[in-house]
């Protein structure tokens, strides 16, 4: 089975929606909803096939598609799906469905182009998650910027141009660093093996000097750190979120942040294992700073959406901590947080969006006592506030628990500090509940409670959060082999360094033959 449909389907759907938008506002909505739903269903079916494969002992790579693109430079159209990619694809597709649904009423301007952008995000992010050629990866990475730029710039709120420009410049600048690092890596590989290639599986294990590895690793790291975002590269995020339309926030928090984490896992940790290991302590410190700093800033905000944005920074700190802890427990935890944060951040941003749609304000001080008028919305808010503070039984608890459990083996003081973040998360979550839903209804709001459509969206997210919190094993099984393989790559790439340099050349070639059948745990 070819995997190109993962990319072609949303692209085609997006174009169709754009064209249909010339005649009707309703058509683009239905087209994109149908496309995204079909995409999701096909991915679910793929997941089923994947599970059947695991049962029969054929884990690892699911599908591979490889066509030469620019053979002179060793660039190919190399797509592959493993467990990790599959989970993130599912998340992307799922959240796109919700993003379409949440914009059903609130977006009324250039509906066709709006949905084209949404589906282009789906296309580009899917591409990011399945591209196994660094050039291709970079291309998708950059493409994903454009629709977001438009989403924020066109359908955003009062200060949208500032926000979207800031977002674009900072992420584009960091993308440049990544491009340089990719080119550097390819050149280093070319020099040591004489083969010009952008293929990830061949570049893994490229022998290089310690200093080279360090600088190249840093280039990748910063690019991904900006997306994740890691303090101090985070300041684009609150602005972008605050100004983005709800669907944009869902895409940003739910998906774009994940490509940062994905990139760290897939590239930084496997191509430069030694440099990453040397850098691990610094990265973990940055992670803990992010956890605490994000939580502190969240408490200081007066804009509800900005507050939720800062909580994202805090949560992504746990992901970074998990990735650089680099043991199975912590990595699995990081993957769970990527998913759980996708659900909870999407839900919180949609809640804020629903509130703003009704009240035309995001000022926390103007809310209060909304439970009395919108109890259902309050209940949903309560649920995701609890998810956000890491209540056991909900998704983020499993992730954070695993990350901390793994990190405790590596660095006790940082784990302790990171756990303090859980208290800080409790403080801002309860504060939000208090300010928005409890207390007296001083603003004398009279609002409609959640509609059926909104409730359906929230119910699906609540279900997903509960499922991940109570029975995450299917997800853990899915990502298990992929994570194990990454750790294998890293170990193998690290191993030749101790051998004489002549033999190093064989490393990457041996590696290239691993997929699609190999790469399983022995």
């Amino acid at each position, binding site marked *: 089975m070819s995997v190109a449909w993962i990319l072609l389907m949303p692209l085609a759907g997006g174009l169709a929606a754009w064209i249909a938008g010339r005649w009707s506002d309703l058509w683009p909505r239905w087209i994109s909803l149908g496309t995204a739903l079909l995409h999701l269903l096909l991915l679910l079916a793929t997941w089923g096939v994947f599970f059947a494969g695991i049962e029969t002992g054929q884990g690892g790579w699911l599908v591979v598609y490889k066509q030469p693109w620019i053979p002179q430079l060793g660039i190919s159209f190399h797509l592959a799906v493993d467990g990790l990619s599959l989970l993130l694809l599912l998340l992307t597709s799922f959240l796109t469905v919700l993003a379409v649904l949440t914009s059903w009423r609130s977006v009324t301007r250039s509906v066709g182009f709006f949905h084209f952008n949404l589906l282009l995000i789906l296309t580009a992010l899917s591409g990011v998650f399945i591209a196994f050629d660094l050039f291709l990866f970079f291309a998708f990475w950059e493409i994903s910027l454009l629709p977001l730029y438009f989403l924020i710039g066109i359908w955003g709120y009062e200060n949208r141009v500032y926000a979207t420009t*800031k977002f674009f410049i*900072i992420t584009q600048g960091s993308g440049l660093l990544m491009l340089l690092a990719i080119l550097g890596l390819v050149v280093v590989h070319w020099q040591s093996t004489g083969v010009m290639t952008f293929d990830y599986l061949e570049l893994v294990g490229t022998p290089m000097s310690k200093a080279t590895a360090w600088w190249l690793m840093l280039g990748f790291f910063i690019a991904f750190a900006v997306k994740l975002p890691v*303090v*101090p590269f*985070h*300041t*684009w995020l*609150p602005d972008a979120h605050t100004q983005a339309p709800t669907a944009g926030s869902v895409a940003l928090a739910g998906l774009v942040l994940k490509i940062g984490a994905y990139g760290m896992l897939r590239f930084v940790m496997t191509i430069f294992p030694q440099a990453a290991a040397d850098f691990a302590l610094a990265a973990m410190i940055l992670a803990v700073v992010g956890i605490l700093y994000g939580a*502190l*800033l969240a*408490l*200081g*905000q*007066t804009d509800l959406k900005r507050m939720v944005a800062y909580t994202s920074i805090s949560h992504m700190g746990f992901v970074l901590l998990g990735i650089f802890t680099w*043991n*199975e*427990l912590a990595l*699995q935890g990081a993957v769970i947080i990527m998913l759980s944060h996708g659900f909870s951040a999407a839900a919180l941003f949609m809640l804020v969006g629903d509130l703003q749609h009704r009240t035309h304000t995001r000022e926390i001080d103007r809310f209060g*006592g909304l*439970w*009395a008028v919108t*109890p259902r919305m309050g*209940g949903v808010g*309560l649920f995701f506030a*609890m998810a956000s503070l890491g*209540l*056991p*039984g909900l998704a983020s*608890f*499993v992730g954070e*628990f*695993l990350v*901390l*459990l793994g990190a*405790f*083996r590596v660095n006790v003081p940082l*784990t*302790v500090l990171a*756990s*303090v973040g*859980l*208290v800080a998360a*409790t*403080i801002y979550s*309860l*504060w939000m*509940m*208090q300010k928005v*839903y*409890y*207390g*007296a*209804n001083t603003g004398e709001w009279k609002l409609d409670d959640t509609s059926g459509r909104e409730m359906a969206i929230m119910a699906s997210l609540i279900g997903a959060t509960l499922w991940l919190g*109570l*029975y*995450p*094993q299917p997800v*853990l099984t899915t990502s*298990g082999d992929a994570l194990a393989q990454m750790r294998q790559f890293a170990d193998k790439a690290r191993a030749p360094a101790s051998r004489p340099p002549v033999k190093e050349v064989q490393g990457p070639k041996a590696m290239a033959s691993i997929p699609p059948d190999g790469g399983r745990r022995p």
Partner: protein
Amino acid sequence: MLELLWLIPALPLLGFVVLMLAGSRLSHTEVAFVGCGSVGLSAAVTLIVGLSFMAAPPPGAAFTQTLWVWLDVDGFRPAFAFYLDALSLTMIFVVTFVGFLIHLYSVEYMMEEEGYSRFFAYMNLFVCAMLTLLLADNLMLLLLGWEGVGLCSYLLIGFFYRDEANGAAASKAFIVTRVGDTAMLMALFLLFAELGTLDIQDLLQRAGQQFQPGSGLAVVVALLLLGGAVGKSAQLPLQTWLPDAMAGPTPVSALIHAATMVTAGVYLIARTHALFMLAPQVLTLVAVIGTLTLLMAGFAALVQTDIKRVLAYSTISQIGYMFLALGVGAWSAALFHFMIHAFFKALLFLGAGAVIMCLHHEQDMYRMGGLRRLMPFTFWCFLIGSGALAAIPVVTAGFYSKDLIIWNAYNSDIGGVWLWAGALAGALLTSIYTFRMVFLTFFRDATEWVKKLLPIHQPGPCVHIPLGVLAVLSIAGGFIELPHTMGKLTLFSDFLNTALPEFHGAHASYGTEFLFELMAAAASIGGIYLVWVLVMGPARHMQRIVALPWAPPLERLWLSGWGFDRLYDVAFVQPYLWCARVNKSDFIDAFYRATAFVTEMLHFVVSLTQTGAVRWYATGIAVGAVATVGLVILL
């Protein structure tokens, strides 16, 4: 019949789900039926399971039921599994039965309040979380119940959400206990790192093999677990949340104080007793914390004016007794006091609730008075509960449970005369503050305020039945465990000793034991007499005390619970809020803004040269050409 075990927490959960999804469409009767029925059924199942457990004890005196594996990563394999032994059976028995009575009471108590179904949904979830905590086979599942209990306390304390003070009290309860929980989380990580499992029984066994008694590791683990326990059980230094927790409806206080939540810490220590026994230093610390807390809370309770606040401090104090018992190794005595305390504290809260309800939400004891004649049934029940709390000798259950602890505090190898003296002083304080409350509320002449409310609307059967049942239990409950000197009956401790280590006293003579019992009895009776004189006797006694120079500041100190709130506010809350406020706009962003600003300024400066005037351009070209040529020549 043991296979029914999973139903015990599942039934209240089902009740919660039904009420959450359909509650707004159900009538009050239906809500009461679901809310009360789920816990009632759970109690019935507990009875069936308990009876079959006792009739035919499973091998090892424990039964494990695994529902599903939660997750399985790298050897970490916690499951949704329940573990039933004498300890957890005792606890779930109390939780379901007392919980059911409180639910029954709430049917009437909450009738007029907004959010009837929401209330029962939260209450059901509370019971479910507590049962999960008690039955958990591994520490991760225990943590699920543990945090769930915290969540429900938050939801119920802040149940009347319109008043911001309630929200603050609710958040405080959640956050303060979460501080303790973080310590407990660390304990879990450490245990897993060292022992490679979180299954409680495996853990205790491996710890016994791998930890040296008194070693640093064992001490740290025990200390961290203790951190979690003091948070949930409202012991020093994390006790501050409990007095404020009475912001919730009165049945909630009954549930928090009697059946759920605050006893979780006691349970945790009892459940992981093997770890604590490997760290004798920490065990001593437990006893010391217990003693200090029971004294501290006892003094604070002396001066409160709010009837629920008196009861709140009395809970802190009584849990202190349980901690003392745990600390001196009197495991079953701690559990015995837990059970008896659950009976009489639920009774007292529900009785106080009946009073508050009939007096139109008046909680100030000084505005009550004379209720003895106006609410006779409530009065008698409340009197029995107070007697049990004050440990009136022979007739009340509280005497047997508390006296056992006071005696063990002296008699144990770990204990000693200081702990005993503290416990005895605490007993005196208890009877003083308890009967001050009784005399102020029910005796004296009816105040003007009460007279205005005449005739008092009497509570109905849903209130009276729980009061009556609990009153009977507060008397009869004590007779299942009698001291050596009074017939020696050890039904309760024999049963618990299948799960907990036996108490090893120094085996002092019967004469000594009898003497100590007399002293405890004297403390109880003496306290009641003293307070009778002060409250009911001539006013001059009280005036003499109030006139003492140190009385007013001491009263203020005790009234504020020894000023802990203020201390924490200054030390933690305000600095944290200040940091959040000051850095609201994120100083790191200043760097990015500065970059943008500098760029814009440069643009501005450079664009100044673009004037559109030809002579400026010509001058520029000329100057540039000259400069270039000049540079070339010079260099």
